[in-house]
């Protein structure tokens, strides 16, 4: 049995397309699977440059693979198969050396990964589902910067109110980065008790403390090669801030109870809805860590700053929940649109999503009406009007002052309610300064204090 036949037999035993190519990138041999994929027999294409046969979009990469100093290279791309189908493939190029007649040749393994790609989309959600939706200039600024954030390994601090999509941005950056093949791990520093947080982040070895019955890798080790997103980093205890700073500087750390250092090859992204500068002033956040985390900075705009994105997101969430719940709701009544466009959304996009989910669940017809919106947003205290936005192509006629109670003034029926409203409006106008508010209202400071207490406005 000749050496060549043995190679062909080995190649045919591999359940992927396999090609043996020479140093001029010409086809020497192909296995049966690759013959079927390309639609050519080995005899027909022997001696022809492989890219004409494989029809990949990575022809330049093949040159690089040939001159890579004997290292195996892997890349993903696509080929057009014999059935004119674009197939996603993973190509592994392994240089072969020292064999007679095959010096400096390459073994290409072409693996069809189209099913994996489809599953990936199903598991992670389609790219459009995960994308940051919106056309507002403030969001577009962030979207334009996303490739810049993804390209680098520098630490990034994402600020913004709760529900604005800090997590989504962090994940989008990870998925666009070179670390996307590795894990994206999210840790909410505010949700884990302080005593457990160190072990959660850095792991521990068996016997490190009472109850540590086995080794625990910790999030830093689990995110190895990928991205670690520390959300609510403003809630990180001072003791752990020091350790985090050390990890960022040394790129290694000691797990709890271990005397052996562990390498930390991660990209760190942090997020917070708190004002870290203020925490610095209060001595609750370390200045050195603040500057270490704040190398790159992105601020997610609140929904109030995003103008007509509200309408876009309403329709997006309606489509999503229609699909999830198997409903066929066509849209919103103009009154509901008007109301939702005027609402202030203290909980931002998350709140809007919840409102639409509530409405889609409640609505039994084809159109979401006012009655299908959650009761809490219809109540006087929350119907936060004043924004003069377009509604179904028409400008709203209401032109109230942008204050908390102005939209619902006509709903006040008793003096106590009017008085309560006046106090809140004045307090808003004076930025919470009680002395100034009392002066404006013509009351003494104690009267104001008494009324605030009486109405439960503290």
């Amino acid at each position, binding site marked *: 049995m000749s050496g060549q036949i043995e190679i062909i037999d080995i190649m045919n035993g591999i359940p992927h397309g396999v090609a043996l190519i020479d140093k001029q990138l010409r086809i020497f041999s192909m296995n049966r699977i690759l013959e079927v994929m390309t*639609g*050519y027999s080995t005899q*027909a*294409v022997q001696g*022809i440059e492989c*890219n*004409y*046969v*494989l*029809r990949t*979009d990575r*022809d330049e990469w093949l040159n690089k693979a040939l001159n890579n100093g004997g290292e195996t290279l892997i890349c993903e791309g696509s*080929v*057009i*198969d*014999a*059935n*004119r*189908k*674009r197939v996603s493939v993973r190509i592994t190029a392994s240089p072969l050396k020292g064999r007679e007649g095959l010096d400096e040749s390459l073994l290409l393994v072409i693996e069809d990964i189209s099913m994996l790609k489809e599953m990936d989309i199903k598991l992670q959600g389609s790219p459009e589902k995960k994308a940051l939706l919106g056309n507002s200039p403030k969001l577009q600024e962030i979207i334009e910067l996303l490739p810049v954030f993804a390209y680098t390994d520098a630490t990034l601090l994402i600020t913004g109110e709760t529900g604005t999509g800090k997590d989504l941005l962090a994940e989008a950056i990870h998925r666009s980065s070179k670390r996307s093949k590795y894990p994206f791990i999210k840790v909410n520093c505010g949700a884990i008790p302080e005593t457990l947080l160190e072990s959660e982040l850095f792991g521990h070895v068996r016997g490190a403390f009472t109850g540590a019955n086995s080794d625990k890798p910790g999030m830093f080790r689990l995110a190895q090669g990928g991205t670690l997103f520390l959300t609510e980093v403003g809630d990180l205890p001072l003791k752990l801030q020091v350790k985090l700073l050390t990890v960022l500087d040394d790129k290694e750390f000691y797990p709890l109870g271990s005397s052996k250092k562990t390498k930390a090859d991660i990209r760190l992204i942090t997020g917070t809805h708190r004002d870290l500068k203020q925490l610095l002033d209060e001595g609750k956040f370390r200045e050195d860590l603040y500057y270490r985390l704040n190398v790159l900075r992105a601020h997610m705009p609140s929904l109030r700053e995003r103008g007509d994105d509200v309408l876009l997101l309403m329709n997006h969430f309606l489509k999503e929940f229609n699909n999830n719940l198997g409903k066929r709701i066509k849209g919103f009544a103009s009154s509901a649109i008007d109301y939702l466009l005027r609402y202030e959304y203290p909980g931002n996009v998350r709140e809007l999503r919840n409102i639409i989910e509530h409405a889609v669940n409640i609505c039994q017809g084809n159109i979401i009406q006012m009655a299908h919106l959650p009761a809490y947003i219809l109540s006087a205290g929350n119907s936060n009007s004043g924004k003069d936005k377009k509604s179904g192509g028409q400008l709203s006629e209401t032109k109230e002052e942008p204050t908390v109670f102005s939209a619902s003034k006509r709903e006040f029926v008793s003096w106590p309610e009017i008085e309560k409203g006046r106090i809140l409006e004045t307090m808003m106008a004076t930025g919470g300064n009680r002395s100034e508010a009392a002066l404006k209202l013509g009351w003494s400071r104690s009267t104001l204090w008494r009324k605030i207490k009486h109405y439960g406005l503290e």
Partner: protein
Amino acid sequence: MKILVTLTADQIAPRFDLCTEVLIAQFNDDRTGPEPRTVLLPGPSADELCSLILKEGIDIVVCGGIEDSFFQYLIWKKVRVIDRVIGPSAKALQLALEEGLRAGAVI
């Protein structure tokens, strides 16, 4: 008859969607005609290339790999597509004119 061949140097481009250069030749009934011309495309785009093919009134397209959606579109527009062809463009042009070129040919 007007024939378009997708180009990479003097060879048929392996991918229709990644091609940035085409050869267009026009022939009279006696198989004579002006010198074929090379057209550089602004960038690789299967959609743009389909538009060019229709705008130029091409009868036959000779190319390497082409996705089925573009293949079916051109067929629907009464353009004959000979795909998965490997070899030099000049020879492919000659064979296409003589009606001796088939899909999947290695020339």
